[in-house]
């Protein structure tokens, strides 16, 4: 696979994304440099594409991914991998607010911490975070797994739907309607199998598994006070 370098600088993002798409179609491995943390880089990439972003990226990098392998060297802004259908995104540093928002499938691997609402409204796939997941992570997650190896911020797994949040390490506090479970050996084996290809499996971890308490599934307005946080 030949390698092509695309320089971002202050050029129009549409022009850069067109170059990226053309390079994907031509089967090149793509190095994107001088990103200046700009937004919307590498959107809607096709299966089989292989991208490496040098430095940090802005908002929505790798959004609507259809199966590309995307490596972000340092930090990502808001909504990295939003609505990803398939593929694998690796973020070397910190992932901003709402990483993996509404994603449908594939994997997002964050080596640092995440901002608030990691995996908000996700509908499938896995988010693996080596550091700590931020405030209200898993908010209204419908399906898929968020797996945090370095603890969780406040209001963890708030209003979870059918997704799962797995945390090793300290959880600052739980969100509303969370059912905290001791996972079975079978459950843990499933998570370890997700971590194994990333070289992150470790049988000594003490896991906490969070699923929905299911009370919010049948919301009654007369119970509203139970859900008010303010």
């Amino acid at each position, binding site marked *: 696979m030949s390698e092509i370098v695309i320089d971002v600088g202050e050029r129009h993002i549409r022009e850069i994304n067109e170059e990226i798409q053309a390079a994907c179609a031509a089967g090149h491995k793509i190095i994107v440099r001088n990103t200046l943390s700009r937004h919307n880089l590498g959107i809607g990439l096709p299966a089989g594409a292989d991208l490496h972003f040098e430095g940090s990226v802005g908002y929505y990098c790798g959004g609507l991914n259809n199966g590309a392998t995307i490596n972000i060297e340092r930090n990502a802004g808001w909504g990295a991998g939003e609505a990803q259908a398939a593929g694998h995104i690796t973020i070397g540093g910190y992932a901003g607010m709402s990483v993996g928002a509404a994603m449908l499938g594939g994997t997002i691997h964050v080596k640092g911490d995440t901002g608030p609402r990691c995996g908000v409204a996700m509908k499938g796939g896995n988010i693996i975070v080596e550091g700590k997941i931020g*405030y209200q992570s898993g908010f209204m997650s419908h399906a898929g797994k968020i797996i945090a190896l370095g603890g969780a911020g406040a209001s963890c797994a708030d209003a979870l739907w059918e997704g799962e949040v797995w945390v090793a390490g300290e959880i600052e506090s739980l969100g509303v309607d969370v059912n905290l479970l001791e996972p079975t050996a079978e459950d843990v084996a499933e998570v370890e199998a997700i971590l194994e290809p990333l070289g992150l499996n470790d049988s000594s971890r003490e896991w906490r598994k969070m699923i929905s308490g299911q009370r919010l599934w049948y919301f009654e307005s007369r119970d509203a006070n139970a859900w008010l946080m303010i």
Partner: protein
Amino acid sequence: MCGIAGRILNAPGKVGDDLVELMVAQEHRGSDSTGFAVYGIPRETGYVLRGMGFDKSRMDGDMDDFQNILKAHGSDFLEDPTFVTNEADHYCTRMIISDPHDIEQWINVADEISDRFEVQSCGRSLEIIKDVGSSNDVADKHGVREMIGTHGLGHARLATESSVLPNASHPFWARPFPDVAIVHNGQITDYYTWRDKLERLGYRFLTYNDSELIAVWVSDQMKNGLTMEQALKKSITSIDGVFTYMIAQPDSIGFAKDRFAMKPLVTVEKNGELAAATEEQAVCRVVPDGSDVINYDGPGITEIWGVGNRRAAA
């Protein structure tokens, strides 16, 4: 959606130019209006005023009336005011005045003509420049890139709660407290009730912009004995809405974020000099070599960055 920025230099320098760069990079967050608060080298006595009149054909009359009010409060122009106009109806002015006997009493009377001419900043060092248009438009019109100072704020506005008017742009001066300014990204949902409470205490608001409240609210808390840190923390549970706001004073810039962590803030520090902005790509413009950024993404956070000896203030 709005974009905000802050900048602190170790010594007086081209802080205006840095603030314009920070705002150019965030123009997509809102370019209906842009504004800057620049803290220049402080005067020993006298105040710098920035003001705006709404009908340039009445400029001479406005200025006569304004000067008469100054004189009635023991103050006068120390130099001839300078003016900026273009094809728009409004005009902007910069004035240097001697100390009025009492700032609060003077501004209360000066505000009686605020339907024609309003004072938008007053301070030993603070100057607020704001107008409709993009960051480059506003910067070129008002010479912001050439402004020298130690620190300042910037704002790109996407109006959501009130009209697009030149005087409804940020930053807002904490009327009548000299040298205090804020910029805000977000919406304050209970601003009307807070305004009412503050108006009953004698404060005056000149726009229907929700953000104008914050500067006065924080300053009023400090007037009643809270430290800035205490006032910032109290604002998180007292003011309802989503916000990341920065408040600047002669010796510091502080910020507070709402309890739902809805609005971002990113900083980068190099050699003790600090840049803060809504987006990472903005701070990259003034500190381009990829120094480590800090994301203040969590809920209910406050911090104060000192000007000068920066480590001591926090």
